[in-house]
C-alpha cells in the first residue's frame, strides 16, 4: 500500500465531470475516461455522484477473469487488463457490482481505472482527485483518513457515516456516505 488512499465524500459532488476530463489526461489512459458521474435523481434535483473503481481487496473483476489479465499492483490498485492476456470475454464488465470495467471493441480489450498507477505508486495524487474542485475525491494520508472518520461518525445513535464496516467488499478506496452534514454542530 501507498502512504495515501483515495477517499470519497459523495455529498460534495456538483456534477462538473472534471474527474472524467482529468482521467483522459493520465499518461496510460489512452485519452479514455475510466470513471463516471451519475445523476442520482434525474428530473428532480442536481444531486450527482462519481462512480469510481473502489479497488477491492478481493476484486470480483479479477476473480471473474479466466485469463488472469487483471492484476493487482503492490499498492493495492486493481489494474486495467493486460493487453497480452485479455481475451475480450467481458466477464469482468458484468462481474463488477459497480460497472467499472468497460470494453473497447476495436482493441478487443477491457479498460478500467488503474488509480493513475504511474502517479500513485509515487504517492502523487491521481488526476481525478488532483483536480476535483469540490473535494468529493481526496487523496489522504492514513492519519488524515482516521481524522475524517472521527469527524464523520455522528453521535446521534442512528446515523453513521464512514462506517468501519465495508458495504460490499473490503476496498482500498474509502467512502463517506451522503449526509455528512446531517446533525452537524453549527458554529452559532
Amino acid at each position, binding site marked *: 500500500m501507498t502512504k495515501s488512499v483515495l477517499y470519497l465524500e459523495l455529498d460534495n459532488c*456538483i456534477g*462538473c465531470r*472534471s474527474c472524467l476530463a482529468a482521467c483522459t489526461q493520465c499518461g496510460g489512459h489512452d485519452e479514455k475516461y475510466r470513471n463516471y458521474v451519475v445523476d442520482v435523481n434525474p428530473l*428532480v*434535483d442536481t444531486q450527482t455522484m462519481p462512480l469510481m473503481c473502489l479497488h477491492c481487496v478481493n476484486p470480483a473483476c479479477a476473480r471473474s477473469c479466466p485469463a488472469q489479465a487483471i492484476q493487482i499492483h503492490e499498492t493495492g490498485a486493481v489494474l486495467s487488463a493486460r493487453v497480452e492476456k485479455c481475451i475480450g470475454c467481458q466477464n469482468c464488465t458484468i462481474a463488477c457490482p459497480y460497472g467499472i470495467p468497460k470494453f473497447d471493441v476495436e482493441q478487443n480489450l477491457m479498460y478500467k481505472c488503474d488509480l493513475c498507477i*504511474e502517479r500513485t505508486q*509515487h504517492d*502523487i495524487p491521481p488526476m481525478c482527485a488532483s483536480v476535483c*474542485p*469540490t473535494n468529493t475525491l481526496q487523496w489522504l494520508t492514513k492519519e488524515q483518513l482516521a481524522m475524517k472518520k472521527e469527524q464523520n461518525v455522528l453521535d446521534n445513535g442512528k446515523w453513521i457515516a464512514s462506517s468501519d464496516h465495508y458495504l460490499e467488499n473490503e476496498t482500498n478506496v474509502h467512502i463517506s456516505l451522503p449526509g455528512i452534514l446531517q446533525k452537524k454542530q453549527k458554529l452559532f
Partner: protein
Amino acid sequence: MTQNIKQAGEQLIPTHCSYCGMQCGMNLRVDVKQNKIIGVEPRYDWPVTLGKMCPKGVTAYQQTNHEDRLLTPLIRDDASLKGTKKGFRKATWEEAYDLIVKNFQTLQQQYGKDTLSVFSGVSMTNEKCYLTGKFARVALQTKYIDYNGRFCMSSAAGGMLGSFGVDRGSTFPWTDINETDCVFLAGSNAAECHPTMMFRIWEMLERGGYLIVVDPRKTPVARRADVHLDLKPGTDLAIANCMLHLLIRNGHIDEAFIEKHTNGFADAAAYVQAFTPEHTSNVTGVAVEKLERAAEIYGKAPNALVMFARGIEQQHKGVDNVQGYINMALVTGKIGRKKSGVATLTGQGNGQGGREHGQKSDLLPGYRKITNPQHVKEVCEVWGITPEEMPDAGVSAYEMFELMEKKEIRSMYLLCSNPAVSAPNLNMVRNAMKNLDFMVCCDFYLSESAEFADVVLPAVTWSEDEGTVTNLEGRIIKINRAQRPLGDSKPDWKIQVEIAERLGKGKYFSHLKTAEDVFNEFRLATKGGTADYYGATWEKIESQKGVFWPCKSEHDKGTPYLFLDKTFYHPDGKAVIHSPVYRPPAEEPCEQYPIILTTGRVVFHYLSGNQTRRIPFLQEMCSEPFAEMHPMMAKQYGVWEGNKVKLTTRRGEGVFKVKVTEAIRKDTVFVPYHFGDEQSVNLLTIATLDPKSRMPEFKACAAKMEGWT
C-alpha cells in the same frame, strides 16, 4: 508540497487557465523538442486553487494546437457574403494591414475620426487591455471604444464604486472563504461558473458555517444551502431591501460602525421600512420564514461574506442590486476585517484588470476618468500626446451597435469578443454588424462574429504570449508563454503596434517590442491612479505568488485586504449606504408572454462558446442549448424531457430541447447562452440597460412557449 509527475522530454510551464476569473493555476506540459503543448498537469502549489481545475481548465490546453486555429490573415472581397463563413481567402500580413489602413483612413476622411470603433474584451492580459485603450485613442483617435465587460462586470463595478468609492471585485483574498462563518451568495451558480471555489464553500459548511443562496434555480450550490431564497428572476432588490429591514428590526446592526464609517443610513432605514417579509414575499415569491431565517443567520454570524454575480448584476437595476446587498455588510460592520467582506465573482479571466485600464468608454489607465482633466493630463504625459488630442468619452458596448445602425459608426475593430453570440437582442446586433462599411476581427478561431468581418487577423491563444492578469480577488498574476505562436499568428499588442505604425503613429508605439515593454509603460500609466500597479513588477508577482493592487512602490507588497483601517475611498473616507428604489424587471410576464425567461452558463462552456464548443470532451458533455423547466410547466405545455419547444419574445425566437427538473421555479425557463447562429438565446433577450452601468437585462424577460415537432 505535492510533487508533479514529469515525463522525459517534457517541460512544465506554470501558468493559469485561459477562462474565468478564478484563473486556476496549471502547468502546461510542453514537448521540448517540438516546442508543442501536449497536456496539462495540476499546479498544486498555487495558493488559490491548489491544483484544482474544472473540466474547461483541464482541457484548455487543447485550444492551442486545435485544427480550427487561424494561421494566416483572411480577406473577404465579396461583402455580400458577410454573415457567413464563405468567401475568405488567405492573405499576407502586409496585404491585410494595407487594406485596413486604406479603409480606416478613407472612412475617417469622409466621416470624421469617430466613425471608427473598437470593441474589445477582457479574456486577455492587462498588457493587451491597456494597449487596446491607447490604440483606440492615440492610433485611431476615436472616442468609440468599449468592451464586453458591459455584458459582464459593469454593474458590480458601478455598485462598488458607489458604495466604497473603489471597484476591486473582492475586499478579501479567496483563502478566507473556508474560514468565514457564513456565506451569503446572491445570483451566483458558483458550482458551475466558478467550480474551483466550491471546496472552500463546502469546507466552511463542514466547519459548521452557514450557506445562504439567492437564486431562482436550485443549482448544485443551492442544493446544500441552509436557506435557499428561490426568488422570481429580477426581484433581487426587494430581497436586499428586506434583509436590511430585518437586520435593523432584529437589532443586528453595528451602530458605532455606521456612525463612524458610513453615510446614508437614516435614509436607507426609512426607505426599507416598507420591505417587511410579508411585502417582500409577495414581490419575490419567497416564503416569509426563509427571509427571516436568512437575515437572522447573517445578522448573528461573527464573520460573514456577501458574494454576488451576474444573477443580480445583469439586470436593468444591476448597480442598485449590488449596492442593496453591499448594505448588509455596511450596516453590520462585517467588512474591513479578515474573514468578512464583499465580493463579486468575476466572470471573465481578466474581468477585473481589463476594466481598470482604459477599455471602457469613459476610463483611462489606473481607473482614471476621461472626463477628469487632471486624469487626462496624467495619462497624456505617459502617452506623449496633448490633452487636446485625447478623445472624449464614447458610449457603452450595446449602444455602439445602435450607433452602427444609425451609420454614426461605420467601422469596427473587434478583438477578444464574440458579440454575435453574447450581446442581447441579437437580430439587431447582427444586422448592425452586417451593414458596417468595414470590419476587422482579431481572433484565433473563426467566431460567429468573424463571419461579419472583411479582414480577419489571426491572434495567438493565451498560451503563446506572456503578461499579467488580475484575478477575481484583485490579485495580479503572471501568464507564461509555453509555445511559440502557431502559423503566422501574432499577439494582439503586436498587431496594434504594427497598425499604429502604418497609420503614422509609430512614435507612440514603436518602442513597445515585448509584452514586458507594454507592462512597464502600463505600470507607469497607472501610477497614482486608484488601481495603482506601479509596484507590481513581474519579478514580484512571481516571487509572491501574485500581488494584490493597489501596489504603489517597489517596497509595497500589495493589499490583500481592503479597508482594514476602516477607510473607504470616498473623499471623506466613509462608505455610502444607498437607498436603492425597487422596481420590477423591464418586461414582466403578461397574457401574451406569460413565462419568465432567464439565461446563464453551464459548467462545460465559457462565454460565447467560441473556444469551448471546439473541445471534444466539452462538446460530448454539452453540445447544444436546452430549455430547463419545472415538470409542472412541462406538463402544462404537453412536453417532456427531450421534446422540443419554441420560445418567443418580442425580439426573437428559438427552438430548444426540453430539460425537466424540479430544481427551478414553476414560472421560469432557463436557457444557457453559449451557442451560436439560431441556437443563441440572445436572439430573445432584452436590451434594456442599467442607467449607470449600461448593463443589459439578460436575466429576465417575458416569453411565450409552444411545443415544436
